[in-house]
């Protein structure tokens, strides 16, 4: 139980550090005149991770408080399934970005996406898939 508490504290510390970095980064880009997809993606990624981690930490904290373990065989399977399916979906998402690169870039007022922006969009997609699938499998298991 003590080990679980330490692990949760470490996860929370990592999330707070990420949040601090995201705030500092947003302050930095706010000083820039032009805000575009390129400088927003590095902010969107940590924000998505923070939202996901906040859900995760609150749920796990409640569990630990009532004497439950931080994770068990079922929660590990949920995370494993969500990770594998999100990886699979990301392959299609990356193909989609490759095919529709120009219209996506135009949506954000850009001519084209550079390598960094494309990678960033791929990571954002993966983070969204992971969060959504983790939430879905946590509520409606299909792991029997």
């Amino acid at each position, binding site marked *: 139980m003590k080990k679980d508490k330490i692990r949760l504290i470490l996860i929370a510390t990592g999330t707070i550090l990420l949040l601090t970095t995201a705030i500092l980064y947003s302050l930095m880009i706010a000083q820039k005149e032009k805000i575009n997809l390129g400088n927003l993606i590095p902010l969107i990624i940590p924000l998505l991770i923070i939202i996901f981690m906040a859900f995760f930490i609150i749920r796990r904290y409640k569990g630990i408080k009532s004497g*439950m*373990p931080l994770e*068990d*065989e*079922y*929660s590990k399977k949920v995370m494993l399934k969500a990770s594998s399916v999100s990886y699979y979906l990301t392959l299609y998402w990356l193909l989609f970005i490759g095919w529709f690169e120009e219209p996506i870039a135009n949506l954000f007022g850009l001519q084209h996406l550079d390598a960094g922006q494309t990678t960033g969009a791929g990571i954002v997609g993966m983070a969204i898939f992971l969060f959504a699938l983790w939430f879905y499998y*946590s509520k409606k*298991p299909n*792991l*029997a």
Partner: protein
Amino acid sequence: MKNKIKELRTKYNLTQEELARRVGVRRETIVFLEQGKYNPSLQLAHDVAEALKTKLDELFTFD
């Protein structure tokens, strides 16, 4: 696969939370086990059977 987890848990006046604590899993796991939405590992099935003072083959039955 069917199981008698809920039936035996009620018989021993245990809440899902108490059973979860005895077995060392989260409450959600017990909920999904009772609903038959999750097939446990052999180790977990054994631990649940032990916590409910029954045998594995009496707790879980195949259709």
